[in-house]
């Protein structure tokens, strides 16, 4: 039907683009399997000729790595759970009820999505100090939770808006309350959007550096991104180990992404893209 030479050329260009995009991560992987002695060789090695797992073993066993891993896990999982549920409840109400101030509240949600993270870091710092939540993982967790709410509300409202009124009415006719409607009907239906929200929220907590750096000073309470930064100071030339640690940090998210890829794309489609 169409000129196949032209098509091939286009695929070649796109393929090259994809390759370039993939390359830095590939290089990280290669370095993480390369023994430290040969990591800094010139010309750089693009393949681990003497692959070793020692970087991973070393990273995993050093500098309280496991502790920091657990901290990150705790902070991200709990804040994701809290943030997602709170935002879903708000999105549900904003989408399905008409009440005074509804538009204004939604506008404030949207507006706070724009706020640069650094803008309120100082007031938040002072606030946390006041509430005795500085240097506390639970305090950090609360900041993450609050930070997730605007985008999640936006995403989920987009989905809830698409659910036909008839479903709502049918539930009410059957004697179900709004509670049943929310938990039993809406939330299961919203699964793809929900998965998307959960993933983005988890990523927000898991990858955060700035807030953790600002709110946590006690080395015993650090999270993984802070620890990774610290690694570089202590092992200046141990690039293999630094990237092994980084790969360990990235793996959970990639695993989630692979597992839920279809949902995530469908979720964005159902929620935000249409809304």
């Amino acid at each position, binding site marked *: 039907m169409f000129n196949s030479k032209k098509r091939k050329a286009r695929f070649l260009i*796109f*393929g090259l*683009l*994809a390759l370039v*995009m*993939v390359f*830095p*991560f590939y*290089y990280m992987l290669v370095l993480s399997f390369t023994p430290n002695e040969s990591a*800094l060789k010139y010309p*750089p090695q693009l393949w681990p000729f003497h692959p070793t797992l020692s970087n991973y073993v070393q990273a995993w066993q050093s500098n309280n790595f496991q502790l920091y891993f657990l901290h990150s896990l705790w902070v991200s999982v709990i804040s994701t759970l809290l943030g997602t549920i*709170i*935002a879903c*409840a*708000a999105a*549900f*109400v904003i989408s399905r*009820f008409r*009440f005074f101030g509804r538009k204004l*509240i939604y506008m*404030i*949600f949207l507006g706070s*999505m*724009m*706020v*640069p*993270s*650094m*803008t*309120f*870091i*100082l*007031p*938040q710092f002072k*606030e946390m100090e006041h509430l005795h939540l500085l240097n506390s993982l639970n305090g950090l967790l609360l*900041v993450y939770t*609050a930070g997730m*709410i605007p985008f999640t509300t936006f995403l989920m409202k987009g989905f809830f808006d698409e659910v036909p009124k008839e479903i709502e009415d049918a539930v*009410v006719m059957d004697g179900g309350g*709004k509670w049943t409607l929310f938990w039993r009907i809406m939330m299961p239906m919203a699964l793809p959007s929900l998965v998307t929200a959960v993933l983005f929220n988890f990523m927000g907590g898991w*990858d*955060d*550096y*700035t807030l953790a750096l*600002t709110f946590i000073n006690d080395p015993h309470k650090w999270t993984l*991104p802070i620890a*990774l*930064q610290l690694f*570089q100071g202590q092992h200046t030339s141990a690039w293999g180990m630094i*990237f092994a640690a*980084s790969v360990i940090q990235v793996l959970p*998210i*990639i695993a989630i*992404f692979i597992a839920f*890829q279809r949902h995530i*794309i*469908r979720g*964005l*489609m159902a929620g935000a*893209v249409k809304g």
Partner: protein
Amino acid sequence: MEAEQRYRRILRIKDKHYVALFLAPAIAALILLTIYPMLYSLKISFFNWNLTVPGSQNQFVGLQNYAEILKHGEFWHSLWITICFTFFSVLFCMVIGTSLAFLMFQNLKGASIVRTFVISAMVIAPIIVGTAWRLMYNPGWGLINYFLSVAGIGGRPFLAQASTVLPALIVVDVWEWSPLVMVIVLAGLQGLSPEVYESARVDGASRWQTFIHITLPLLKPALLLSLLIRTMDAFRTFDTIYAMTGGGPGRSSENLNILMYNTAFEYFQVSKAASMALLSLIVITVICTLIFRVFRRNEGEAQ
């Protein structure tokens, strides 16, 4: 219809407490972490608070902070850097992300594996992204200079030169966040019905015509969403730049976020930092509103 409306109105009154209950936690979070900090920032921006000067938080100076910021060059310099960074990063992200989405949409062999790898760029913590790229940009044994020297082009210390540091940082941001645009546009593409294409084909439209007149307009919501998200995020980039250059060399990569951070936590001039924060909030609000308006207006013309 009328009966249903009456029925709904009764429901509405009956469910008032649900509204309150469901909204309360979200609103509490908003107040604690957005509204209160905003008012607090506004308040301290009128004072001359320096963390190292005791009692200075009670020194009311009115609009003096704003006047000083607007008069001195550093804010304008950082604003300019932020805007350049945001503009080019978003532009390339949109082009590359959309291209990648179309590539992935072709259902080629191995597309899902490539997709997973491409997406991994966006899930890596920004602080690690910064480290990895700093390594690749290394003038001595970094990969990029190696490739350049193989290609016969002389390498250079990209991150240490004022003239190259911004483009180098933009490349990193584009690499990191094009996948997000890809995912969103891919979602939009998968939401389009194939009938649209088929009817266009029947009408004898060329591939390019179909793309310009049918696919792109239908993708508008997805494009708008990714454009807005990317603009907001590029405007507030911090981690990656902080990890790679810390704003340097000199001030040549000091964007607004880094300037604010340094003002508050290096120089302890918290009032000044708060004023900057509010000014930058105004700027990003204006930018986002403009983007929204332009998209809306085009929509009106198309119909």
